[in-house]
């Protein structure tokens, strides 16, 4: 019985994470400017990835692989720090080089 609960929880986290990843990719295509595209991907990607990896952690914690749980926890902690820092770095480079932000009413770039 517990195996069914673990399976359902894992599937729920996986679907939640995959939905946010698809949203991030759609935002990369739809938004009209460089800065707004980074908004869509830099945040939805982080949350979606953490949700998927957390679901995998629950699955392998039940099936008795303790080292895989530790390694996935390392990836999650690294990701919370590394993804926002990468997004900030590339946005700062664009701002310093002179890419102009988009206001409401202009055309797409």
């Amino acid at each position, binding site marked *: 019985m517990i195996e069914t609960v673990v399976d359902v929880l894992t599937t729920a986290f996986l679907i939640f994470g995959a939905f946010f990843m698809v949203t991030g990719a759609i935002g990369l295509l739809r938004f009209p400017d460089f*800065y707004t595209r980074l*908004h869509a991907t830099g945040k*939805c990607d982080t*949350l979606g990835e953490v949700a998927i990896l957390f679901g995998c952690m629950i699955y392998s914690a039940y099936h008795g692989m303790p080292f895989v749980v530790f390694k996935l926890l390392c990836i999650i902690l690294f990701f919370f720090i590394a993804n*926002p820092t990468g997004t*900030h770095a590339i*946005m700062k480079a664009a701002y310093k080089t002179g890419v102009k932000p988009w206001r*409401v009413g202009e055309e797409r770039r």
Partner: protein
Amino acid sequence: MNRKDFLSVVVTFLIMYVFWLLLSACIGSHHGIDYIRVVGGLICAGIVTAFSHKHRLLFTGKEEKVLTKAYRFIFYVPWLLWQIILANFDVAYRVLHPKMPINPRIIEFDTTLRGDISRTTLANSITLTPGTITIEVKGSRFWVHAIADKAAEALLVDKTMQMKVAYVFMEF
């Protein structure tokens, strides 16, 4: 080498070696202890410690009351996670709406936080909660790009996040 240098070298070496053992899983495997991995771990941890024990993380001698700050930080993380989940739904709504209601602007503001770690935590939290991304930090002035009015208001007017970070790092 005085006492603090020696202590930092030993602590760094121990942390690196324990991390190697946990990652290479040479204790839990059923073929017995694999001596190549144990000795290799000693060599690799030694090399990494030789390069990096000068950039100390733990015994820098600059901060005080580390345990209180760590204890409060552990309670800050679940609040941050809840804000991330709530506001990511907001970004997903803006992406999938057929009319795409966005209104991007760049904001500048000043903070009253003083230390390096607290400013880094604030910048990282601003980039993690959807609606705002930190563009630059110069001294105590933050440049932030916001995507809609509601997110910008919550950052400028309410100052919830800045109060929470100031509470965690004990700077009022």
